[in-house]
C-alpha cells in the first residue's frame, strides 16, 4: 500500500488549515480581547458553536452550504469550473469551520493577559496600533498562539467525520490518513490500523515535542 499520497495530503490539509485559521483567528481574537462592545459574549459563544454539532452533522450542513445549488457553491463552480465539495479546497473550508473554536479561544485568552501598559509604552515609542499588536501583544501571547496552532493542527489531522462527508474520500485529492485508519478498523484489518495509528502517534508526538521544546527556549514568556 503506498501511503505517501495520503500522508502528504493529510499534512498539507493540516498545515494549510492551521496557517489560514491562525490568520483569520488573529484579528477576531484581538477584537474579542480588546472590545468593549456589548455583543462580545454573543460572538464568543458563536465561535464555540461548531464544536457542539457532531462532525458528520456539521459535514452534512457544509455539504448543503457548499453544494453547487447553493450561492457559494455555484459561484465557485462558475469561477473554477469544479465543484467545491469533494475538492481539497472544500476540505480546507470544512476544516476551518470545525477547528475555529480551538484557534480563537486560546488566542483570545492569551491576548487578554497582555498588560495594557506594555502596549501603551509601544504606542508612545512610535508603534501604530497594528504595529504594537504584532510586535508586542502577539509575541507576549505566543504561548496562546502555540496552543491554538497545536490544537488546530492536531485536530485537523484527527478529523474525519467532516472530511469524509465533505471530501468524499477521493484518492490523492481528499483521502487523508484518518480515513485510511477508519477504513482499516471497519474492514477488521486491525494490523494495518495498529501500524497506521502507531505511526501517526509517533510522528505527531515527535512534532509536538519539538514544537514545545523550541518554544521553551525562547526566553521570557507570558501568556
Amino acid at each position, binding site marked *: 500500500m503506498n501511503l505517501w499520497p495520503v500522508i502528504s495530503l493529510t499534512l498539507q490539509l493540516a498545515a494549510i488549515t492551521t496557517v489560514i485559521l491562525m490568520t483569520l483567528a488573529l484579528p477576531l481574537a484581538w477584537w474579542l480581547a480588546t472590545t468593549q462592545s456589548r455583543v462580545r459574549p454573543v460572538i464568543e459563544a458563536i465561535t464555540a458553536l461548531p464544536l457542539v454539532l457532531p462532525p458528520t452533522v456539521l459535514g452534512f450542513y457544509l455539504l448543503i452550504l457548499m453544494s453547487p445549488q447553493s450561492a457559494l457553491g455555484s459561484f465557485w463552480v462558475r469561477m473554477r469550473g469544479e465543484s467545491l465539495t469533494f475538492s481539497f479546497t472544500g476540505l480546507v473550508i470544512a476544516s476551518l469551520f470545525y477547528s475555529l473554536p480551538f484557534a480563537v479561544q486560546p488566542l483570545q485568552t492569551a491576548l487578554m493577559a497582555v*498588560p495594557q*501598559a*506594555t502596549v*501603551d*509604552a*509601544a*504606542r*508612545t*515609542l*512610535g*508603534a*501604530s*496600533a497594528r*504595529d504594537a499588536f504584532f*510586535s*508586542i501583544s502577539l*509575541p*507576549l501571547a*505566543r504561548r496562546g498562539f502555540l496552543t491554538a496552532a497545536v490544537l488546530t493542527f492536531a485536530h485537523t489531522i484527527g478529523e474525519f467525520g467532516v472530511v469524509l462527508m465533505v471530501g468524499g474520500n477521493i484518492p490523492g485529492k481528499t483521502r487523508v490518513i484518518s480515513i485510511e485508519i477508519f477504513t482499516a478498523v471497519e474492514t477488521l484489518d486491525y494490523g494495518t490500523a495498529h501500524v497506521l495509528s502507531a505511526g501517526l502517534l509517533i510522528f505527531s508526538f515527535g512534532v509536538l515535542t519539538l514544537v514545545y521544546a523550541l518554544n521553551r527556549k525562547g*526566553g*521570557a*514568556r*507570558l501568556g
Partner: protein
Amino acid sequence: MARTLAFKARLARGPDFVLDAEAVIPLEGVTAIAGQSGSGKTTLLRALAGLDQQKGDAVRVDFAGQAWDDAERHTPPEERRVGFVFQDPSLFPHLSVEQNLRYGARRRQIASLDAIVDALDLKSLLPRATEGLSGGEARRVALARALASDPAVLFLDEPLSGMDWDRKGEVLPYLARAVSEAQVPALYVTHAADEIAMLADRVLTMDAGQVVGWAPPPIRMSARVEGIGPNGMLIALDGATEGKGRFSVPIRARVGEAIGLGVPADSLMVSATHPGNSSAAMVVPADILDGANDGSGIRVSVFGQEVHLPMLDIGLTGSRVWLSILRALPRPEPRDSQADANHD
C-alpha cells in the same frame, strides 16, 4: 511667539475622579508637575500623550501650534512623539534590554544609541533579559528607551524613583543636557525635592484633578566651571569676587562651561551674621532686594545675580544677609548651546 503646550483636558476616571485641568506650559526646559498622590498627575500625562481618549467638546491640546486634540481630532499616540517614562517601567518582557532600546529608535530612524547607553551606564545590561533587572536598573532602561526614541517632548512620571543618589547624580545632569542641548522640553512628575531643585525650571501644582497654579520656582544660581576641584570640578558663582563663592561639585564638565546650581530649600540657611568657619559648602553674602515678602518668598542679589528664595517670615530686618549653602546640585546649562543654535 514662544512654543507652548496649551491644554484644556477633561477625563473621568471611575465615579469620583475627574481630571479637569487647563494650563499653558512653555516648551522650554523642565516643567515639574507636583501634587499629592492621587491628584491626577499620571492621568494628565496619559491624556496629553493620547493614551486615554478625552471626552467633551471643549477638550483641546495644542503642542507648539499643532492641534493634538480638539473636538474633532484625536492624534494617535505614535504621532505625538512623546517620550514617555511610565511610573511603572513597563519594559517589553519578550525583548532584551538592547531590543527594548531599539524598539522606539528603529521606528523613528535613530541609528546610534551609544550616547544614551554611555550616559545611563547600560552597556553591561544590553544583552540581558528584562526579567532579572533590579528595580533601579529597570527604570534606567525605561528612561533610556524613551530618550532613544527621538522624542519631541519628554513626559517623565517619577523616572528616577528607585535610583540611589550616586546614580541620580549621573542621570540628572544627562537629562538636563538632553533637555537643553537637544532642545527637548520635559514634563517631569516627581515627589523628590532634590530632583525638582536640580532640574526644574518651573513647578506646576495639581490638586484633585485640577491645575492649581505655578509653585515658587526652585532656588537657582548660575555659575561657571573654573577648574578641577578636590571633589569633581571647581565652580564659581557668576559675578563672584576673588576667593569667594567657589566650591567643588561632582560633575563631568569642561572648564568654562556654564553650570546651573539648584539649591534645595532645606539645605540653604539665611542668617544675619556670617556663621564663621562652618560645614557649609559655601557661605555667600546677599542683599535683600525687596524687604517685604511678596507672598512667595524674597528676592536677593548674590554677586549681582537675582535669586528668588522661597523663605517666608525669616525675621531679618537688615538688608545684608549671609546664605549658607549646605548642598548645591549642579546642572549643565543651555545658555551656550542655545547661543550656538541661534547662530545657525
